């Protein structure tokens, strides 16, 4: 399957600054992400990558600067709005609903597409059941896609780390997002699992044309799968460009990569 062509700029980050008390997490960051592309954000620990993602998603509200999504400037709003506008994400420290099964976790991902009515739900008949089955079907497709059939009914708290990450991806995908924000989806995985994860990420991108913004520390992964890399360093933007450009940027090597290795 061919990768979709890069489209227009879907996300535009302009002059974002964010600080917590004395700590300046982000200062004056600008970059763009194009539709259907895979943008990677890299940088040392504490550089502000997760904070950047949080700003895009709307959980943090930057003190300065604007974020334009689909041509509309994002206003500081409730964090659930982003999901309803087609932005889904995963978290650096897994944020699954630990008490629920894999299937239920993925079903919650579909909440933006479902109408819940307590009275109908109490009866579990008619529209409620119908909706439940419809969305179950969608959830099963995702389960199939991520190859997690066997753990469908297992409470996620008991799953090993790698599978949890996969379920989390599934939950984000369930929302059928236009933009998918992934915060270190492959941390703590071995090569084999990283390969799987990459495959899923690429497939999503190819099949649905989902725009992906990804934070990752594994340079192999970043360089191989991303179209565009943004490098942050302690709140500042260090570089921005195609993977190969960035890889050879001396500043980036000094601040982040250390000895070139792969």
């Amino acid at each position, binding site marked *: 399957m061919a990768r979709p062509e890069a489209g227009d700029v879907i996300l535009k980050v302009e002059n974002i600054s964010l600080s917590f008390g004395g700590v300046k997490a982000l200062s004056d960051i600008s970059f763009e992400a194009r539709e259907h592309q895979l943008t990677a954000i890299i940088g040392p620990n504490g550089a502000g990558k997760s904070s950047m993602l949080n700003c895009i998603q709307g959980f943090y509200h930057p003190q300065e600067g604007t974020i334009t999504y689909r041509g509309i400037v994002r206003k500081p709003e409730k964090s659930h709005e982003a999901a309803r506008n087609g932005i889904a994400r995963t978290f650096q420290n897994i*944020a699954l609903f630990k008490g629920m099964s894999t299937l239920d976790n993925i079903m919650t991902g579909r909440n933006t597409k479902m109408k819940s009515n307590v009275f109908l739900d109490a009866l579990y008949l008619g529209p409620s059941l119908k909706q439940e089955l419809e969305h179950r079907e969608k959830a099963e497709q995702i389960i199939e896609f991520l190859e997690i059939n066997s753990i469908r009914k297992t409470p996620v708290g008991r799953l090993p780390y790698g599978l949890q990450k996969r379920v989390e991806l599934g939950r984000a995908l369930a929302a059928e997002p236009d933009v998918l924000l992934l915060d270190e989806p492959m941390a703590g995985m071995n090569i084999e699992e990283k390969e799987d994860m990459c495959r899923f990420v690429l497939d999503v991108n190819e099949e649905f044309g989902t725009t992906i913004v990804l934070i990752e520390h594994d340079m192999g992964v970043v360089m191989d799968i991303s179209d565009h890399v943004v490098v942050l360093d302690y709140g500042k933007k260090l570089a921005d460009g195609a993977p190969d450009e960035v890889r050879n940027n001396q500043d980036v090597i000094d601040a982040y990569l250390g000895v070139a290795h792969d």
Partner: protein
Amino acid sequence: MEFLHAMTIGPIVEIIEYPTFFMEVLIGGLLTGVMYSLVALGFVLIFKASGVFNFAQGAMVLFAALTFVGLMEHGLPMWAALIATVAVMIALAYAIERLVLGKLVNQEPIILFMATLGIAFFLDGFGQTIWGSDVKPLDVGIPSDAIDVGGVLINWFDITAAVVAGLMVAVLAIFFQKTRIGRALRAVADDHQAALSVGIPLKTIWMVVWSVAGIVGLVAGVMWGSKLGVQFTLSLIALKALPVLMIGGFTSIPGAIIGGLIVGAGEKVAEVFWGPAVGGAIEDWFAYMLAMAFLVFRPQGLFGDKIIERV
């Protein structure tokens, strides 16, 4: 109309018209609040040091006081009874660690809370089995007469309580903030397993904390017991300590005192000046409502540890 007046202008006018009476209520309230703080302190200690909301604190107050009077009734002199009771509270802490908490390491807070409920049940039954359910008057020689300071009646007893509470808070606050053990205690509250992993001996730590909480309970029990007589109901003062905790924050020792002052003054002033308009007995819910109002602005209480929300 009349009601509105009684709710708004009436009390204000009254306060302005009788300032000494207002002062009396205010001071009375503040001093009562300190008595609440004494009980709240025990909760704070354990919460701060292990993240456990100790439902049994009330029962421990009762148990300590019962043991103390019980021993005195059996003819022990006061100092001996005091030492013996402290020993009993330490033994109790040891038993609780061995039989309950030690087996529930790393469980969710609500589970630990439930376990302390089990402890409370047990202590209530156990204390009464040993010491009976009668009222036992307790007199440790704290004077209880009132003195007149510029038309305001102040009770010696309350002043004593305030001094005791103040001292305890100072000592405990220093202990927690400045010492190695204090730091370890706070670490345990955050993450049992991680604390274990760096070599903090959970057992010893819990023993220490529960012993200290037991001793704080004893002090509270003696104070309240000399006020009301030692009896089963004493365990219910825990309910009066809860709004104090909310306002001060579950993790702050000075918060326990300040919360106590706010609750005490607030509920007494409300009861005396606003209560009559709505039929009285509003102090219970008023304290809670007041606390809730505080929490809406500061969800962790005035001095409680920040609630860290990160993704």
